[in-house]
């Protein structure tokens, strides 16, 4: 394995950063705070147009056919932007669930730029950031569309949480896989948030580090 980012990852990160910068950076989150969701929804649409919301979806299903490695690069950059809405869910958990359930129409909607969120065991069966997003419920391995039944207070006004109830059953999905993608995307977002607060630029692979890693491999 290689912990260093390659040129594709670097370009991907630059693409996400450019979308965020064009949208106004932190102004996107600030607008959401003030009730204007349009700038954030524009970012989600542009991410979809660049194939970023479908990074972990296979080519045959209309995705980019990349993987979790690419997804964390994008999620970290979106963390730097403090993008409101269901970032980890739209990039990681929901496409994993929809692809597994064979919910082609719902997946197409997500890949078309509509944010989506999901309630599962790992989220306490509550959906985060459901405003202007499609909502799903994964319970006992069964994925279904869902309706919000009640909002709960959240420390982050851009990521409220809500109780949901199941509507139409879509199919079966692996709860563990969905939780892993949601958790990992959240971890990557947190890295981006931390880096933004520290004010540090994105990590750039350096030859010296690369050599050190190769030397370590040789010695093993």
């Amino acid at each position, binding site marked *: *394995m290689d*912990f260093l980012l390659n040129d594709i990852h670097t370009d991907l990160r630059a693409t996400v950063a450019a979308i965020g910068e064009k949208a106004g950076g*932190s102004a996107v*989150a*600030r607008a959401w*705070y003030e009730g204007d969701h349009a700038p954030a929804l524009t970012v989600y649409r542009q991410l979809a147009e660049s194939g970023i919301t479908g990074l972990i979806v296979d080519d045959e299903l209309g995705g980019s056919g990349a*993987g*979790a*490695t690419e*997804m*964390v690069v994008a999620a*970290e950059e979106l963390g730097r932007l*403090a993008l409101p809405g269901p970032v*980890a869910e739209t990039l990681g*958990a929901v496409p994993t669930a929809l692809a597994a359930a064979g919910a082609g129409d719902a997946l197409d909607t997500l890949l078309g730029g509509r944010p989506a969120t999901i309630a599962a065991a*790992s*989220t306490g069966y509550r959906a*985060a950031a459901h405003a202007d997003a499609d909502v799903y419920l994964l319970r006992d391995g069964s994925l279904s569309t869902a309706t919000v039944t009640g909002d709960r207070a*959240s*420390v*982050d*006004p*851009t*990521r409220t949480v809500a109780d949901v109830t199941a509507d139409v059953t879509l199919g079966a999905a692996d709860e*563990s896989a969905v*939780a*892993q*993608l*949601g*958790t*990992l995307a*959240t*971890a*990557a*977002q*947190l*890295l981006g*948030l*931390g*880096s*933004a*607060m*520290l004010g*540090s630029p994105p*990590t750039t692979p350096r030859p010296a580090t690369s050599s050190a890693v190769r030397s370590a491999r040789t010695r093993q």
Partner: protein
Amino acid sequence: MKHHLADVAIALEMARPLVHGAAVGLDGNAHWESPVSATTEGVNVTRDVSAAKVAAADAAYLASRRSLQVLGAIGYTAEHDLSLYLTKTRALVSAWGTAAQHRALILETL
């Protein structure tokens, strides 16, 4: 103050390989010999993802606390962008499982 900021930088740089390593594991590309053989091919992806979340959450939370200390009261105000990052960090720290839940998952694999 410099040392506090250095601590944040260290925490973030220590967490980043865990996040990327877990992603590589999820992609099925991990081929090192893990000391834990709870899953096939010697790689416990669930444990790796939980470790990544705990480390990233700790690092981001440390960054938020130190940022607030450095900026002082202005960091609390809605006018400063730090308030956007503080609230989002606090929400994401417990999203998709709290640190205690993920530590319990890791413990199960040991």
